[in-house]
């Protein structure tokens, strides 16, 4: 059987990226940690945003991580699914809004 590109266990090794570029890796993780601290938004709200973005980015590691993180923060599955729909709506909206560009071009080229 061929090895899949993604291995769920690799998520545990995320921190190892600092080994090949310590300064940049550490700066990234400091920034990352700071972003998710309680601020003007609660950590719970940030977790839901991260979950939605994880889906639009289609990152399996991020989906695993922020599904778990959301559960830890008491987020319900209904809230999680709604957050993903927000991501999906923006993603599809971003596709469809380009339809206006297509329409503009058609109108210019073909009257």
């Amino acid at each position, binding site marked *: 059987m061929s090895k899949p590109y993604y291995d769920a266990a690799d998520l545990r090794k995320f921190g190892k990226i600092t080994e090949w570029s310590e300064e940049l890796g550490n700066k990234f993780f400091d920034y990352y940690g700071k972003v998710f601290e309680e601020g003007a938004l609660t950590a719970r709200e940030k977790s839901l945003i991260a979950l939605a973005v994880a889906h639009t980015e289609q990152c399996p590691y991020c989906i695993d991580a922020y599904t778990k993180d959301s559960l830890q923060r*008491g987020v319900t599955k209904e809230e999680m699914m709604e957050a993903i729909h927000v991501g999906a709506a923006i993603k599809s909206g971003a596709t469809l809004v380009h339809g206006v560009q297509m329409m503009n071009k058609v109108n210019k080229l073909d009257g």
Partner: protein
Amino acid sequence: MATATKSLKKQGSDLAQSNKQLEILSNGIFQNGELPTFKTKISETSQFPLKAKKLEILQINVGYMCNQVCDHCHVDAGPDRKEIMTRDTMRQCLEVIKNTGAHTLDLTGGAPEMNPDFRWFVEEAAKAGIKDFIVRSNLTIIRANKKYYDLPEFFKKHNIHVVSSMPHWTRGKTDKQRGDGVFDKSIKALQELNAVGYGMPGSDLRLDLVYNPSGAFLPGDQAAMEKDFKKALMEDFGIEFHNLFAITNLPIARFLDFLIASENYEDYMYSLVEAYNPAAVENVMCTNTISISWDGYLFDCDFNQMLELPVNSKSKHISEFNEELLEGRNIVISQHCYGCTAGAGSSCQGVVA
């Protein structure tokens, strides 16, 4: 819906045996060096051996019988468990309660109220005047049968500090972990406790809730969870309570069974080890607690009781209880202890760090 209807013991499961659980916790990822054992981890910060300090909390498990069969119960409690503390053993406990320097007496189970001598024991123990007298009530017992309907008044009469499990503020998540109908009964019981004064702002009748996660993940921040619980329970049901204790599920008994069956065991142990916090080790509850089993034996905590790991002391039974001898004993540890040192730590009183 909670899937369990019988205890692991009744099912004849291998995992009902404590030695099988300890084998799992010592083998695999901990044997091949993938993860450090708890002993190795606490040695890194010179915290091995973990030593008992002055006794502050006497926790008495009056029996494993329970009206519920919760998915993740570390006691493997249920209606089919017949291990119940006798009045003779309770008398021996009372002798200790009268003379102990501990400031907290904590009755647990199973559902402690199902012990036929529960009320007698509470009445007698209350006479000792211990500062904080806790009963861990699962709430649904108050609505389980007419004979329990007056429990809120009974608790009030003896100034009992009620600590109750509530896995979530939504019906779905609560019933999934604790069984169909548990949420509605728990809400009704909380309203009845509120009605006699429990949990009200400024009230001396303490009502605290315990949150433990419904699956293979760690609890979130205790203060944030408390805020969410308070808001939802007040808005939806007009319920008040004092504090929320966020408790980590320890990988033993039915929770261990769940972790293995759902193929979450390794990931969960990784999560616990990654969240290890040396500051939590300082205040871990086994260092100021003695757990007494239904048959009078002494343990460092309720979890060690379930794993049948007795105290490392000459004073091993309530009949030969010796507070001086117990102080300074080496705490008996295994990999399940990572559950109490993850993140902000975990104890029967919530976070410790």
